[in-house]
């Protein structure tokens, strides 16, 4: 997975021709040039293709045409093997990170001399960064020591060699010095006992890596953990003695692309180009199944099924990333209420609404939603990673927004976390307490922005919808739909009382009850019957038995229009108050504050959690609403009166 850069799509057909076309344009880049370069670079390229990209980068730098959207770095590369194969691979990979890297190579085999000589090209180049690429063979740790004292000396000498180079060149390097950990040797001398025996190369290299780690922890250098890379891809694939003997290549040349990737990540992190936000699709990405079709009980999530546990692991990974400061967002083609339901109500969800900084669930294309997310968080598109199981969506996002990273995903969701981790989007070179809090900080900002937007634009948005809210008595024609809503609505349903069609018919006919249905139409069409209210006409205070609404019209202020109607009707009948009640269910938490928001006061809280409310009609004034109310019930009442 890591070794073949599996999160990246295959190289474009005729990759070489496309790079050549860009190179022909490099002296005078036209519109979209850098997006095209980025799109070409965002693929699983081999060392030759990376070399071709590196040539493009070199020509851009030489021509002074590097765009502001790309960061730049001059990297010194010094080490104890053949570096010429690695330099173009690093420079080519860097373009994937929006970085133009100009590599200045030290000569083979004379690293220390060049580092000490202050008139060497490395000293004079004006380096931003330096990479000291050492391996066990060059550091003399590929042979066992004669005694434990000798082993200690050898580790010390190896460490000193790296440190000498770094310290000598430090005055010539502006930003950062990178050193590599050393992969452990494959071939055992004693066997498992190697780990205990200090004279074994295995133990010595382990000791050296410890010294390098301590040095980095003190802040002297940054680590490129090549040891871990080699272990991940497999030491047997990593180490290629034949290539060392033939050309002093430090590792198998087919590992060059992944090596370049790991180095480029650290350079990108130093330049602040690591990504900041993980945007998650929902269906078949955070849970198995489609919430809109399968419902809360039907999606696969949680212990008890292999698939459910796999999706749980994805959520856990997202939470862990959030814990280290990565902002989480949602981008899903879904009804918003359906999309939010698992976050609110599914007992096995690890991710909850308050972990998500921006929640985009609608039927607009994902590119537009990703733009909205970047805008709400006030970060660049190049800070986003978009995780989506659907290859077509990923392709659309890559095509329209080449700056957004949209990793390929394997068939099996159990491997989603590994793929995301392998892609290394969130590489860090340090970690602080502030980082931990960063996700929350971004989130608060996004909420403020959203509130501002809501207060500034929501009413004009609603006005622009030209909504017509029609309120009518329930009749035989509308009865089936009303009964259906009564038996199906779970979320926006204050009492969750279920009535059959016959019971609804009885309510219609009962002069002591007030049963209405509400339709909403707007510029985009008629939503049909979206709300039902049944009230008992108790003389002093009408008692609201049922109040439900379809979540499709949340936020349209329909409930306020309904309240105005109820208040008017109750007043006309001589009542002075309205009584409402919220009966909590597993699914109706979203309306727990419904009556509070409408200005009712709490009268009583019952042991079962039911809250009884009252609204004094004397003090009630209907608000101005951005919708036209067509109240046929009131008209009839007035004409009858």
């Amino acid at each position, binding site marked *: 997975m890591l070794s073949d850069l599996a999160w990246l799509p295959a190289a474009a057909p005729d990759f070489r021709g496309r790079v050549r076309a860009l190179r022909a344009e490099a002296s005078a880049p036209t519109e979209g040039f850098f997006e095209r370069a980025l799109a070409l670079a965002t693929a699983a390229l081999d060392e030759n293709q990376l070399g071709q990209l590196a040539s493009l980068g070199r020509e851009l730098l030489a021509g002074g045409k590097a765009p502001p959207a790309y960061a730049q770095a001059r990297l010194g590369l010094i080490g104890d093997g053949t570096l*010429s194969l690695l330099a173009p691979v690093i420079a080519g990979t860097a373009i994937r990170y929006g970085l133009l890297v100009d590599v200045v190579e030290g000569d083979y085999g004379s690293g220390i001399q060049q580092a000490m000589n202050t008139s060497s090209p490395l000293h004079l180049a004006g380096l931003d960064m330096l990479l000291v690429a050492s391996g066990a063979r060059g550091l003399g740790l590929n042979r066992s020591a004669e005694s434990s004292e000798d082993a200690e000396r050898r580790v010390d000498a190896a460490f000193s060699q790296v440190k000498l180079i770094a310290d000598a060149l430090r005055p010539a390097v502006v930003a950062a010095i990178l050193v590599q950990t050393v992969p452990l040797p494959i071939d055992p001398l004693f066997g498992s006992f190697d780990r205990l025996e200090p004279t074994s190369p295995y133990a010595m290299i382990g000791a050296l890596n410890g010294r390098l780690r301590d040095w980095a922890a003190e802040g002297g250098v940054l680590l490129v953990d090549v040891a871990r890379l080699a272990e991940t891809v497999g030491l047997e694939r990593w180490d290629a003695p034949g290539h060392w003997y033939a050309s002093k290549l430090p590792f198998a040349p087919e590992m060059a692309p992944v090596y370049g990737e790991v180095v480029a990540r650290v350079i990108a992190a130093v330049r602040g180009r690591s990504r900041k936000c993980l945007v998650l699709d929902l269906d078949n990405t955070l849970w198995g199944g489609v919430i809109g079709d399968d419902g809360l009980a039907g999606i696969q999530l949680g212990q008890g099924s292999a698939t459910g546990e796999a999706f749980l692991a994805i959520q856990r990974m997202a939470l862990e990333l959030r814990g280290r400061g990565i902002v989480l967002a949602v981008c899903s083609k879904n009804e918003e209420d359906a999309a939010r339901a698992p976050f609110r109500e599914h007992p096995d969800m690890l991710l909850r609404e308050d972990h998500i900084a921006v929640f985009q669930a609608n039927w607009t294309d994902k590119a537009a939603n990703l733009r909205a997310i970047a805008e709400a968080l006030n970060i660049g598109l190049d800070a986003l990673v978009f995780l989506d199981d659907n290859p077509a969506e990923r392709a659309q996002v890559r095509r329209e927004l080449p700056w957004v990273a949209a990793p390929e995903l394997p068939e099996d969701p159990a491997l989603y976390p590994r793929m995301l981790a392998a892609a290394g989007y969130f590489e860090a070179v340090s970690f602080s307490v502030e980082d931990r809090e960063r996700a929350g900080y971004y989130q608060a900002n996004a909420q403020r922005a959203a509130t501002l937007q809501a207060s500034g634009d929501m009413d004009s948005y609603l006005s622009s919808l030209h909504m017509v809210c029609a309120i009518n008595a329930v009749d035989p024609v509308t009865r089936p739909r009303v009964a259906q809503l009564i038996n199906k609505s779970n979320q926006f349903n204050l009492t969750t009382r279920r009535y059959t069609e016959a019971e609804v018919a009885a309510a219609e006919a009962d002069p002591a009850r007030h049963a209405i249905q509400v339709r909403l139409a707007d510029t985009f069409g008629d939503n049909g019957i979206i709300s039902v209210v049944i009230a008992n006409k108790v003389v002093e205070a009408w008692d609201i038995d049922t109040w439900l609404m379809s979540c499709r019209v949340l936020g349209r202020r329909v409930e306020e229009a309904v309240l105005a109607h109820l208040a008017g009707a109750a007043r006309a009948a001589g009542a002075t108050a309205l009584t409402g009640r919220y009966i909590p269910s597993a699914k109706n938490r979203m309306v727990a504050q419904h009556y509070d928001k409408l200005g009712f006061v709490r009268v009583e809280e019952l042991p079962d959690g039911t809250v009884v409310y009252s609204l004094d009609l004397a003090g009630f004034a209907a608000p101005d609403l951005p919708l036209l109310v067509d109240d046929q019930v009131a008209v009839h009442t007035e004409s009858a009166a």
Partner: protein
Amino acid sequence: MTAISSEAVMDSLREIMIDVFDLDDLALTLETTADDIEEWDSLSHVRLVVAVERKFGFRFTNSEIESLKTVGDLVRLIQSKAG
């Protein structure tokens, strides 16, 4: 056992070399040597070997590589290893 024709190997080699040496076009014969192609140096030779190994799915030994003098030698080596 079906041996790959030397024409087929030459066609593949030409494609690989164009990519490895980053050339516009390449006139390749069995007699071509590294001296005939400016971009064919010891370093790009390593990339050539790796690209050929990747294309045909086998590994060369160092002694096999050291014995090569012409493109024809490489074609025959590929045929014998891939056959």
